[in-house]
């Protein structure tokens, strides 16, 4: 994974000098959070010392987690570890619906109420809506956390192709991939390019499961990967321009950039099963009717661990590259417990927490300086994309607005037909 982040870093040519930053509001003149300590005076060195008394004063952190799959990690591992480290600060954990909770925060802001939550592990796809609504605290989490000085700066400033500048800190990285069941298909038979997928689907109709881009991220990622593989370099470059507005993205999607992609999927559609969500695809593989499908690497890992997918499940990436992203943590602008929230976020990005996460969930990290190979047992490593393939074929996601617009066209051109 460090190789992947190297590519990413190279792409955006951002280097992070390990120097003391002044903590300054992101994209604004003033902080939009009420803090008991002067945030401008925080440095990585005095971070903990300064915040701890105020954090103890807060005494609690309300924490939203939008994933279902991370519940055991948080509830049974990370939160107990944090509370043991900082006695006197309680984490109130809630497993929530991410999209709905963003609306909840927006409604609270509209009503002039404080935020009901202090730390929110939120879906990356919502970063734009949330930040434009002003519900994210404009803290430079990408640089101010002493526990995470080595964050991949692209991952730390861009979420789902939207540049927020660092207010959402990447808790984990994920990767869309091709999953297959070695009970029914050998590694050599697994298609490695879009042409091979077509050949495979023609030879074995109905056994390739593709998540609908409108229904699950593994499908959206697959569509983005197809764009990377099939669109012209110019088109790809436009799609990777994170400064595009929604209207520009819709224009792009309407143009001829997507024509070859749509033609491909139109031809592919009758040969495969398009499913409604990530789990749907996995269920079809578990049921033995699909042999190859589009998946999230970490979800497949998690499902094998829970016995919901057979241990014969493997994941790999297409030769032309597949996109990955991640989800991040933010502190809402209306948080009432900012000091404790900062301590908790800092802990979640620390070596200890990130190692725990990888070993339990197989989900990758945005910390470039951590060597996690040792944390993984052999059988776990088997459930991930092989390191060499990942290094070579992992790609960042294209601009979120372009992806959404492309999905809308997919619905019209492929699904509607």
């Amino acid at each position, binding site marked *: 994974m460090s190789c992947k982040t190297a590519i990413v870093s190279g792409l955006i040519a951002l280097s992070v000098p390990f120097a003391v930053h002044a903590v300054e509001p992101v994209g604004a003149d003033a902080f939009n959070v009420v803090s008991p300590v002067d945030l401008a005076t925080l440095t990585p060195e005095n971070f903990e010392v300064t915040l701890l008394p105020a954090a103890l004063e807060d005494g609690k952190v309300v924490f939203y987690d939008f994933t279902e799959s991370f519940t055991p990690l948080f509830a049974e591992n990370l939160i107990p570890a944090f509370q043991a480290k900082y006695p006197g600060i309680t984490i109130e954990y809630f497993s929530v*619906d991410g*999209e*709905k909770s*963003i*609306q909840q925060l*927006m*409604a609270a802001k*509209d009503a002039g109420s404080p935020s009901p939550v202090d730390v929110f592990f939120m879906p990356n*796809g*919502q970063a734009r*809506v949330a930040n434009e*609504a002003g519900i994210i605290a404009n803290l430079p989490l990408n640089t101010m956390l002493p526990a995470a000085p080595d964050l991949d700066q692209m991952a730390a400033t861009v979420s789902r192709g939207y540049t927020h500048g660092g207010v959402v800190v990447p808790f984990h990285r994920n990767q869309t991939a091709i999953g297959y069941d070695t009970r029914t298909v050998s590694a050599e038979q697994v298609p490695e390019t879009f042409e091979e997928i077509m050949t495979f689907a023609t030879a074995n109709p*109905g056994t390739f499961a593709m998540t*609908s881009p*409108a*229904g699950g991220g593994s499908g959206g990622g697959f569509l983005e990967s197809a764009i990377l593989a099939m669109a012209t370099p110019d088109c790809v470059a436009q799609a990777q321009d994170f400064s595009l507005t929604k209207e520009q993205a819709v224009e792009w999607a309407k143009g001829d950039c997507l024509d070859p992609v749509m033609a491909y999927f139109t031809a592919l559609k009758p040969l495969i*099963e*398009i*499913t*409604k969500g990530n789990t*749907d695809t996995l*269920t*079809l593989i*578990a*049921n*033995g*009717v*699909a042999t190859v499908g589009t998946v999230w690497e970490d979800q497949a890992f998690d499902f094998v661990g829970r016995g919901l997918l057979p241990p014969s499940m493997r994941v790999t990436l297409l030769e032309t590259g597949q996109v990955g992203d991640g989800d991040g943590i933010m502190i809402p602008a209306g948080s009432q417990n900012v000091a404790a929230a900062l301590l908790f976020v800092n802990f979640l990005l620390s070596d200890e927490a990130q190692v725990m996460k990888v070993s339990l969930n197989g989900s990758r990290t945005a910390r470039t300086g951590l060597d996690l190979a040792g944390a993984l047992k052999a059988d776990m490593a088997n459930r991930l994309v092989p390191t060499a393939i990942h290094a070579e074929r992992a790609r960042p996601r294209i601009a979120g607005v372009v992806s959404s617009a492309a999905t809308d066209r997919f*619905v*019209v051109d492929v*699904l*509607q037909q």
Partner: protein
Amino acid sequence: MRRLPQGVVAALLVLPSGGYLALFFGLPLLLAFLGSFGLYARGGDGGFTLRHYADLFGTQAYRDGLVFSTYLAIVPTLVSLAISLPLAMGLAQTFPGRKLFNALYKVPLVVPGIVAAFIVMTLFDRGGLAARLLTPIGIDLPKIVRDDWAVGVIIATAWKAVPFMTLIIGGSLGAIQKDIILAARTLGATPLTAFWRIQIPLALPGITAAFLLTFIGGMGAFAVPNLLGPVYPLPLSVHMYVNAFERNNWGLVAAMGTMLSLISVLVLLAYYRTTRSLRTAYGGEVR
């Protein structure tokens, strides 16, 4: 004792629930209606606009969604009706174990729709349990989950709706005087004729009421079609959810909600037309 006029007494008695519904139902609905025209909508700029309706009817996915929502209201309801009628008739007979059946058939009433969807999925998805049982004996199940005809949605919805409809229809059938059916029999009607010509017409208000309530449930259903329905089209309720919570497009959501409510109201009016002659002829409902 001073006595209040009866109209005032009635108004006072209606006030608690009437006021409650006005505040917590009427007002939100009004806001949604205004919001669909861009007035007082969250995230809107406050001016009157028909943009949301233009969006709704200008987008094929939404148009198809509206049609599909109506389909998901009608078809499962018809299927449930076809099961509930004979079931209600059967349960009215005397047979061993009747009391037990009468309790057991209602169990799905208390099972959340989501659970029904979960069970349909584990049983009927491709490679699911039903397929594992039937394939060895040479029966190939058609695609039931995510299929174009939404068979999975129909099964799960009907599973939930049949007890509800049976309960209401059974009650309506049971309310018919036995003598009336016997009279038809002695006048020469076979059991089947008596059923169609006497019992069905007399139970029609109950049947249509059950139909209507199930219909509206299907119209707004979200969880079950989201889990079991086809990839395309999606019912309007799912578009509502996506636009509200993922796209923050509340004006469009309000327009969709207004359309769904409008269809429901139209169906209600049709119901009143259908049953009007019966209501005046039977039970003396002349208020």
